[in-house]
């Protein structure tokens, strides 16, 4: 007996943490920056997103962290159709997603420690529950001596590491990173990548947009290659792994 395709799609979306069904996106009345994307990310998978500048990597991440809406198609997060649910559910979805932005959006009036602890405070956790964890994490990313510093006094690499600490402090179910190693030296890039791998081992689904071909090659992780807003068919060894 043939299976109902609508029921099959719904079942697939329920099993995946991220599901794009025919998703397109545009800014205002401009042309599509993403066109008819169809893919899913299995729980606990680890992917890279690559492509030339303007290919739509950052826009793809924006859709997942709910900073933009699809102009067409359906986006499912954690088995939930994002457009169908009430707006009041979005904050709960966002709390399950950690984001490392390309331009390190930090709050300049808050200290390094306050910035790092931000997602935990928003989630309603009490300071006594997370003080030690935040301090350990900041030590781990090399900011142990700068916990009471203000972001304006940090170097580019330090800001990047703080942004990463803030993205992972809540142990998100999905971790998105846009060029996370762009402003750090090789040694720190390796450490950061290891952190992402550790989080992935703990169950987080990781998606990293990067131009760093060396990092991709060494990691052996699957790649989602974008060109002109579409997923390009490219015979990369890891392309199909984890993708559905």
């Amino acid at each position, binding site marked *: 007996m043939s299976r109902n395709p609508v029921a099959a799609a719904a079942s697939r979306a329920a099993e995946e943490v991220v599901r794009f069904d025919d998703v397109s996106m545009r800014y205002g009345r401009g042309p599509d920056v993403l066109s008819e994307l169809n893919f899913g990310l299995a729980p606990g998978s680890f992917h890279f997103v690559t492509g030339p500048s303007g290919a739509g990597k950052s826009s793809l991440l924006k859709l997942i*962290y*709910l*900073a*933009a*809406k699809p102009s067409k198609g359906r986006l499912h997060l954690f088995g939930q159709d994002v457009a169908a649910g009430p*707006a*009041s559910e979005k*904050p*709960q*979805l*966002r*709390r399950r997603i950690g*984001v490392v932005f390309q331009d390190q*959006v*930090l*709050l*300049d*009036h*808050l*200290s390094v*420690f*306050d910035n790092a*602890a*931000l*997602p935990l*405070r*928003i*989630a309603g956790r009490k*300071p006594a529950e997370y*003080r*030690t964890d*935040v*301090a350990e994490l900041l*030590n781990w990313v090399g900011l*142990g*001596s*700068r*916990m*009471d*510093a203000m972001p304006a006094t940090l170097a580019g690499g330090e800001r990047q590491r703080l942004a990463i600490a803030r993205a992972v402090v809540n142990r998100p179910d999905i971790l998105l990173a846009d060029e996370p190693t762009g402003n750090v030296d090789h040694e720190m890039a390796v450490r950061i990548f290891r952190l992402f791998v550790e989080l992935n081992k703990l169950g987080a689904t990781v998606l990293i947009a990067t131009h760093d071909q060396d990092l991709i090659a060494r990691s052996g992780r699957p790649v989602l290659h974008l060109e002109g807003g579409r997923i390009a068919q490219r015979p990369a060894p890891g392309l199909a792994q984890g993708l559905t």
Partner: protein
Amino acid sequence: MSESFDPQRWRPAPFLPEAEARDGTLIFVVAVLCFLACLTAMGVIAADRAAAGWTGQLTGEATVIVRPKGGETPDAAAARAAEALAGTAGVTEARALEPAKAYDLIRPWLGDVTDIEDLPVPRLVAVTLDGRHPADAAKLRAALQSQNVDATVDDHSVWIKDIRRAGGVVKVLGTCVFLLIAAAAAAVVAFATRAGLAARRDVVEVLHLAGAEDGAIARLFQARFARVAAQAGLIGAGAAAVVGAVLRIAGGGGGLTPALPVAWIDLLAVIPCPLLAATVAAIAAQVTATRLIRAMP
């Protein structure tokens, strides 16, 4: 780890900065608006009191102009009228005024006349009415007619009507000015909230994307602008109270002019100002912030 920093002693800092550079300007503008609103409120109260005082004085009295009949002397006619009125219900006292008082009343219109006593000046009877159940003009006329006294009764009703109308106009105008000032304060706060949100878009975006609820973000701005407006309201109300006190001290109980008899109790009108300013600011900030945040994806 930084030597001065102990994570165990860390306390979360406010999500929004404690103070902004533009706060001073906002406090000044809202304080001026609150000052004007408080002065308007005190002015309306004082004008209302003046109108009520004048009306009370006029309603408590009536004047009777007596014309002598036949061979009766003016003084005898006035005495008879006073006697007739004194026994009327609703009259506390009826007193024939001495001729000299009547001459004094008309002298300003006639100038320096040497033989004013030769003029046929009518006699006046001043009637004090019962404060609770005053006799009306018809009752006074009936009492005079029953004693066959030729007289005209002036119960000041024309003046009372005018004063009441003037008092009502002052009250309506004052309330309109007060509401206009409150609306201007709300518009200023709404504008400042919008500018504050634009300047702190980074905070809003970070909190929004980290999963803060729209209402929680709006409440941050609501609390912040309510605090600023309460501060401004306190300054404006304090300044208005000082001006009111100076007017009271300089003018005494009668005020600087009879139209504005400021009383110490009027200064209490400024007390709700900080709370009202904070409420207006909180509502304006909440509406503006919610609208802006909801426009985000």
